[in-house]
């Protein structure tokens, strides 16, 4: 504020001084250049005017030679006085004649200034002869008096201007003083308290008063705004609290649903399982009327389980716990699989399904389960809401923003949707209307889940529809979904690893004794499940398949029994009472004497990714598909006399194809997608033949062979090496020392593979891989 004050005052002062200097300079210049010469000329003129007429008189007197008259004229001139200064006008007058005579008169004037001089010639008026001259000295005191007077006035004017400047400065200071006071007040004002500007003084300039009032108004508005902000802040806080409460409630709901779903599914699995067993037994016992009733129980149970699964999926998505299990898949295989499921329903409603897909559509990397579920949902909706119409499935790739996407478009000619219905279509538990629910059934969760699945995969589902004219649903997904960075972290946070100290307290069994005892018996399957009914169902089913089934109702009991009986297969539930199934799995795979035992996860939760990453052999979900269970257990426990081929290849399709051909030829097939998992499968059960791809991630074929050669009991296993690389002579020779047969990958390679397997199989002197291993164990012990 002081700065502001000085600035204005200085500006005004400088301005006024500037004006003063300018005016003084102008006046001085005017005085020096104009007035002084004019005054000087005026005084000179006076002298000239004085001397001319008197010279005429002198001329006449000289012509008459009357010098007394001349002196009289000169005296007359000397008497002339200036009335203002009261001084003689003439200092001296001198008449000089050509003949040498001089008449001179002077006044006693004591002047420091040089007088003005006026001279004029004296002629003879009749002959024009020059007689002499008159010289007059005119008093210059008056002239200097005028100059001094003017200078004095100039000085007075300067002093007056300086005084004026000081007065103006003072006046400005007084004017600015209230502004200064206001500034000081504003600097020290506490904005956290209600503030008001002090009352203005009575004597203030109108403009300053206006500023004062404006600041006062500003304070009022600031206070008003503060109050509004406070209210807004409180409202925002309240809204935030409500949001957090809502989120917390939602999380609690999701957790509750997850828990309840488990609690609901546990008895439901029993209902479905027992009804299925009863249905089969009743069918054998020829009770068709009861079979029908049991079918209804079974179907109702399955439907209820489907609903619970949907609710669980939704709650997992909302709780942010849904994970992606990304796999590369051939699109046409996936589509064939989905259409095969939907076709019976389409035929039931007399609908025609048309597929529009490029034969060379290739592969995509997605969560197959989630994509399959989403496609099934769209297609089953299309066939459900269309009768006697046509459903078209278009699949094509598209480049959007330099990224490759895949689109699945499902078009139908069904009942369609209104705009209002479209708006709420993807909301959970919403269907087109209540009549739709009554007529077509369903929970209204399918589309909501599908949309969330697609969004989880970085894509979207969109819909275009007109009431009565059908609908078009489009799924768009990145063709190759990238692995989420935090997958492993999440996995780690969910999986609690077992305390190995606690678990290894279990006594190590006498393996040879156990195997000797078992040689004459059937294979043993250990079921670890806290639900006794689930245990009983599995026991009853597998017993029919000639397996000896042992049950454990907790994780700790399960570990104890694993060590006691060394089962051929373990069926493991994830949600146990004392520990998680993941902990048991981790323990089994961390013990050298147990690592070979195949573990089949049998659970209601969908976490295949964790299961495989921890070393599970297979993953089955409840409710149990009994046929699938039998098949899976059979794969793990090979029957005597059946030869096993371990196919190690990172290409899933290649593995499938090998499995198809070899199983058709009577071989049992075990798969592993890299060398590391291959070693794990070998440890579980020594295969008759290993079909090995040489180029794989994690552990390639050469590294696998190195590991295989380190174990004496594995050194005799024949290996068929498959390679797409061109091998030179040295490489081929080196490889031939380590493997039985080398096959170049190509069009006819699968026939070569089958031929090679048959050749090795016929030569194979090992009657049974299991026997070989036991024999080795014996020899080692022995």
């Amino acid at each position, binding site marked *: 504020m002081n700065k502001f004050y000085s600035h204005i005052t200085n500006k005004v002062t400088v301005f006024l001084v500037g004006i003063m200097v300018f005016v003084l300079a102008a006046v001085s210049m005017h005085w020096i250049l104009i007035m002084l010469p004019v005054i000087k000329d005026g005084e000179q003129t006076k002298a000239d005017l004085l001397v001319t007429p008197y010279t005429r008189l002198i001329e006449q007197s000289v012509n008459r030679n009357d010098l007394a008259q001349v002196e009289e004229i000169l005296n007359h001139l000397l008497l002339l006085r200036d009335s203002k200064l009261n001084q003689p006008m003439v200092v001296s007058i001198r008449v000089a004649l050509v003949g040498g005579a001089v008449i001179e008169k002077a006044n006693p004037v004591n002047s420091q200034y040089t007088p003005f001089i006026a001279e004029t*010639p004296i002629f003879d008026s009749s002959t024009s002869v020059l007689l002499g001259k008159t010289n007059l000295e005119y008093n210059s005191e008056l002239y200097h008096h005028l100059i001094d007077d003017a200078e004095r006035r100039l000085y007075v004017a300067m002093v007056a201007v300086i005084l004026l400047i000081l007065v103006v400065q003072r006046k400005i200071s007084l004017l600015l003083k209230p502004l200064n006071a206001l500034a000081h007040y504003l600097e020290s004002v506490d904005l956290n308290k209600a503030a008001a500007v002090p009352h203005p003084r009575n004597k203030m300039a109108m403009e300053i008063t206006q500023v004062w009032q404006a600041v006062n108004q500003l304070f009022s508005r600031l206070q008003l705004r503060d109050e509004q902000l406070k209210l807004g802040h409180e409202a925002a806080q309240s809204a935030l609290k409500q949001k957090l409460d809502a989120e917390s409630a939602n999380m609690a709901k999701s957790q509750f649903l997850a828990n309840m779903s488990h609690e609901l599914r546990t008895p439901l699995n029993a209902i479905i399982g027992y009804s299925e067993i009863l249905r089969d037994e009743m069918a054998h016992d020829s009770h068709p009327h009861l079979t029908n009733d049991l079918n209804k129980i079974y179907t109702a149970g399955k439907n209820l389980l489907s609903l619970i699964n949907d609710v669980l999926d939704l709650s997992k998505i909302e709780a942010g716990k849904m994970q992606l299990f990304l796999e590369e898949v051939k699109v046409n295989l996936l589509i064939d699989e989905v259409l095969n499921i939907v076709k019976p329903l389409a035929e039931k409603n007399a609908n025609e399904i048309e597929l529009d897909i490029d034969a060379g559509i290739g592969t995509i990397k997605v969560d197959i389960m989630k994509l399959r579920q989403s496609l099934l949902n769209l297609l089953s909706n299309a066939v459900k809401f269309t009768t006697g119409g046509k459903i078209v499935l278009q699949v094509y790739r598209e480049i959007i923003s330099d990224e490759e996407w895949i689109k699945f478009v499902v078009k139908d000619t069904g009942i369609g949707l209104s705009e209002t219905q479209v708006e709420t279509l993807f909301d959970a538990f919403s269907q087109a209307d209540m009549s739709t629910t009554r007529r077509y059934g369903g929970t209204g969760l399918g589309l909501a889940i599908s949309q969330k699945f697609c969004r989880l995969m970085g894509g979207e589902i969109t819909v275009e529809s007109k009431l009565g004219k059908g609908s078009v649903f489009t799924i768009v997904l990145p063709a190759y979904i990238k692995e989420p960075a935090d997958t492993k972290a999440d996995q780690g946070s969910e999986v609690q690893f077992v305390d190995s100290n606690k678990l290894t307290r279990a006594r190590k069994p006498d393996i040879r004794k156990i195997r000797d005892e078992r040689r004459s018996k059937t294979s043993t399957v250990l079921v670890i499940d806290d639900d006794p009914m689930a245990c009983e169902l599995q026991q009853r089913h597998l017993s029919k398949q000639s397996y000896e089934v042992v049950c454990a109702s907790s994780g700790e009991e399960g570990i104890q029994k694993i060590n006691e009986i060394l089962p051929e297969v373990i069926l493991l539930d994830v949600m146990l009472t004392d520990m998680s199934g993941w902990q048991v799995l981790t323990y089994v795979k961390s013990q050298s004497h147990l690592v070979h035992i195949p573990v089949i996860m049998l659970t209601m939760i969908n976490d295949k990714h964790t299961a495989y990453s921890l070393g599970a052999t297979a993953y089955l979900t409840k409710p149990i598909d009994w046929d699938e269970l039998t098949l899976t257990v059979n794969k793990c426990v090979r029957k005597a006399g059946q030869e096993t081929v371990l196919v190690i290849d990172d290409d899933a399709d290649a593995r499938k194809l090998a499995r198809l051909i070899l199983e058709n030829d009577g071989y049992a097939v075990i798969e592993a997608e890299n060398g590391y998992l291959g070693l794990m499968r070998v440890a579980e059960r020594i295969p008759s033949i290993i079909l090995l791809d040489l180029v794989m991630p994690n552990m390639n074929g050469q590294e696998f062979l190195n590991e295989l050669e380190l174990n004496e009991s594995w050194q005799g296993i024949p290996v068929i090496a498959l390679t797409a690389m061109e091998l030179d002579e040295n490489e081929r020779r080196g490889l031939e020392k380590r493997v039985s047969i080398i096959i170049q990958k190509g069009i006819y390679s699968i026939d070569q593979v089958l031929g090679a397997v048959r050749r090795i199989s016929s030569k194979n002197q090992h009657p049974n891989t299991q026997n070989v291993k036991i024999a080795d164990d014996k020899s080692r012990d022995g």
Partner: protein
Amino acid sequence: MQSESLTLSRYPSKALLLFGVAALGCLHLVCGADTIDQRVQIALSLFPRIVAVDKRFQEKLTADNKARLVFVYERDKSKAVDLAKTVGTTNRNIVNVAVDTVPVQLIDQLAENAQAPTAIFITELLGEDDFKQLLLYGINRGIIVFSPYSGDVERGATVGLAITSRVFPYFNSGTLRASGVEINPMLLEMSKRYE
């Protein structure tokens, strides 16, 4: 013209300004004429006195021992006649020498056979060429060429008038030196000179 009148009537201040400028022009002409006449009148009394202070005045007299004062004109003979008559009347003699004042046309005066004058008085404003010829004539003859007209001393006339608060004789020093005319120093001191 019509449009100009209309324009002027539309702007009376412009018309007034034009009128004022025209009036001032006329006044200047009238006053100028008056000033010239006054200068000539003053010069008539000074001319014989200047001739008298010429130190070689006696050498420039005519054969019959007269001071021949020539009043040169180009077009206005009557004026020259009047002026010559006035000087002749008021100055019968100069330094006791009889004065003969004669009006002569310039071309006649410049002729080879023209009678040599004691001094020349220019009665009207001459053109540049005529003035130069006359000036050269005066220098060659060593005689005074007196011109009462303002600016003539600056362009070479031997003597003229300098009028401030008083009337001074106004000599051209260069012409004085060129023509060899010698003036009484007392008068020369009291006069103004054009260097």
